[in-house]
């Protein structure tokens, strides 16, 4: 069984200690509502910025649903995040137009500067990269977005500038 040591260690690794008060408040709010799972999960994500594992077990216990079922829901919908996300979400469009115009290189540039690929977050929780499908601005391809701001006709050089700008901010 020695080859399982690593698996076992991963398994027993302590769950992140978080304050469950926020999750409890969200559950309190919806507890008597019919079909409350989605609003509870959305509320939890709003509060923590992602869905911490401990809150899933809490919700499972309090709503009397299986934790596995909640996990099924969380992995089915793209809107849920199971890991903490950065303050700034960099969306790199990988749609056809952007792809043709070198979106791949933009992705690489981000990886080079921040060390994060798709769905990854920097350790300081400042940036999260996400590769997305066409965001409807093909005219300005290639395009990236940082939170709500759009940056069109972007190059490797300009990407670096944008990143620096946000790095300088809080």
């Amino acid at each position, binding site marked *: *069984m020695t080859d399982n040591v690593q698996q*076992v260690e991963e398994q027993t690794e302590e769950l992140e200690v978080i304050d469950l008060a926020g999750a409890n408040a969200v559950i309190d709010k919806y507890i008597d509502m019919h079909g409350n799972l989605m609003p509870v999960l959305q509320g939890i994500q709003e509060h923590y910025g992602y869905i911490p594992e401990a809150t899933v077990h809490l919700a499972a216990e309090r709503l*009397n649903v*299986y934790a*596995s079922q909640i996990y*099924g829901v969380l*992995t089915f919908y793209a809107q849920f995040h199971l890991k903490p996300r950065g303050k700034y979400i960099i969306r790199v469009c990988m749609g056809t137009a952007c792809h043709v115009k070198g979106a791949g290189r933009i992705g690489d540039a981000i990886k080079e500067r921040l060390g994060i690929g798709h769905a990854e977050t920097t350790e300081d929780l400042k940036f999260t990269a996400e590769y997305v499908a066409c965001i409807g601005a093909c005219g300005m391809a290639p395009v990236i977005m940082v939170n709500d701001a759009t940056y069109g006709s972007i190059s490797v050089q300009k990407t670096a500038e944008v990143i620096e700008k946000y790095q300088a901010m809080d």
Partner: protein
Amino acid sequence: MVNLTIDGKQITTAKTSTIYEAAKENGINIPVLCYAKKLLPYGACRICLVEVEQMKGRLIPSCTTPVTEGMVVNTMSDEIRKVRKTVLEFLLVNHVVECPVCDKGGECDLQDLTYEYEVVTNRFQGEKFDLPTDEINPLIERNMNRCVLCGKCVRVCDEIVGYGSYSFINRGFETKIATAFDRGLNCEFCGQCVSMCPVGAILPRPFKFKARPWQLKEVDSVCGYCGNGCTVTLGVKDNQVQTIRFNEDTGVNHGNLCVRGRFGYSFVNDTKRLKKPMIRNSNGILVEAEWEEALSAAAEGLKAAGSSAGFIAGARLTNEELYLFKKLSRTVGSDNLDHSGGECYRGVTEGLFETLGVKASTGTFPQIESAQAIVAIRSDFYETHPVVGMVVNQAIRRNEAQLTVIADKKGKLTKLPEARTLMHTPGCEINILNALCQTLLAEGIAVTDGVEDVAALQAFLADYTPEAVAQTVGGDAEAIKKTARELAAADKVAILLAYGLPYSAYSKELATAAANLAILSGCAGGAGSGLYLCGEKANSQGAIDLGIVPGAAGRGVQKMLQGAADGEVKALYVVAEDPMVTYPDRQAVEAGLKKPFLVVQDIYLTETARLADVVLPAATFAEKDGTFTNAERRLQRVRAGIKSPGEAQTDFAVFTRMLKKLGQVTAETPTQVFAELSQECTEYKGIAPADIGPQGVVWGGESLAPTKKQLKTVAGLVPMDASYLLLTGSCLYHSGSLSTHARGPLSVVPEAYVELSRSDAATLGVKEDELLKLKAGDQTLQAKVKVGTRLPAGVMFMPYHFAELELNRVYKGQPAIPVKPVK
């Protein structure tokens, strides 16, 4: 009934049948992957497609489509063949084909179908799955590279087990079966998912590389652990039980088992078993001896003691063996006969006898599934009799039964959908039962026809209004009333009460209170209703039926031990029990066992056996032929799958030899002995072992009619006052002390623990797995901490199975033990 044609054959079948079921009944085979008899229709895999003339233009899934009058079905055509082949090709695109080393090889549905449909090449190409296998737990291995996404594991764990380990996660190619956060499996390890998986994606680890399925000899027998009496099919090779095979056609359990039944067989093959008799020599040391010598010594010692000899049996013996044991006691002229600690299960049946005139459950387990209202007394019911718990789960999920749990701690039962929990302070079940009876009477909804002493009980219960009870022992007055009203309104009611050695306090009183409720709610004697008294061991009911209880002038277990310590009982014969570990009050037990001439017959050198003058090596259930009677009065056949190791012998053989030594002629085979005992035991009259088929024989019929309805007043307990109360009891993974010799259960719960609530853990400043010391009187117990959500603050729990803990130093049969934590 509906008439239809399948493959040109005229068929009549039930209205509720699907095409697949109708075909199967008539010997027409349609392949399936995602269908399972015991699960709800699903229709995901499309391998079972057939043609229906009335629904031309598309193929119809036979496993979900109900039959209709005049339907004309074809189960095979060129097109069907082609489509099925395509389904298989799709499945094989990502599937990692490794049949030569897959334990499922030889009985894998995918392998068989691939062969049958000659899928030699594949038109589709794609990436193979490359997922890590889950080998974290020692019992179940999951290899999702072999999964065909039939969803049976997800469904069985929800629909039947009610645990909910699995879910489909992700989407598209990424879809797979996983646990929450895709962690390793950590569940109750009942193995239902193992038995359902059509491929080699979920496998029993202890069986890995042990045998190919076709090399196994299959022997149907009955699980040797609890009173549920599940059929187990032993898979035997090289005179060893290699695994428990899946078998859904035999027995009351439809192939469902708990961790003990599925993985607890390994004690049978244990090398530490006793293989030779032992005798204490002149230096006071136990040394190996020949059978003749040991038997003579034992027989002489018992004979010499005569009427002052005592006989204590465990309820893991077969009916035939128990009968011979009783005969032995009579032969030496002793009335001192008892079983399983004496007071627990016997006490329960006595309470029932005084009220209902019967000494057994009044219904059968399958009836629970259609009950509308179910009351489970103690949440531990699920831990002691897990497979009945699964029936309760199905009653709720399929038939919307309302479950009420009367409990001092939460558990699996309290989590079932819409379950209502009446939480009370430890030891106060009776108070709640009384409040339920009080409500029935006060609201005029009780069944009182032909019931004795209604007025007396009503007057007595004046102090037990739901409000008063809720105030003193907890629970919610409105909830109590709701339950009472539901019981009155329901046609079919099931009241469940499990019993066992760690619950010996107030057992008779509890059964009486439960019987009162059964009478007043119309449950007792009602068609389809039942009061279920479930003994802890595989043959607890048999021991009651055969009268393994003190004779007219005889002593019960406690008095025998007391008498032995005082020198009045001069010899004791203890079979298949380890009183040193499992009986309450260790000091008293030890005093009683040390003094007399002691014969112990068991499969291990138990703590009790170490004190013996003569030790006789016995056999496990897997080596025995005979019958057990389960908790619903079902007589079932136990069959030998292997031969005992060394010189060990079945208890049957030992008893017949011993009887001969004492000059008694006896029948030679279990069948002959059964014929003899069925003359004497009225319940078993007219039953012959040959009549006991795959479903057993229920004595007394599906509903056992009470011979009277005599209400008896029984006082509740005054809640104990202590800042911490310790409860003892069974934990799901174990049964008595026997399972502590079985690798399966041990690998999940290897040692004793003390379970407490989060808030107590915080107050005491202890964390999971830290050691906690508890002082009780002048004794100290120490165990690892388990923090959970089952217990209220101020209540702790320790399972009683483990010898090392010596819990019975402090457990003397009290409802709960006041303890003081010391850091």
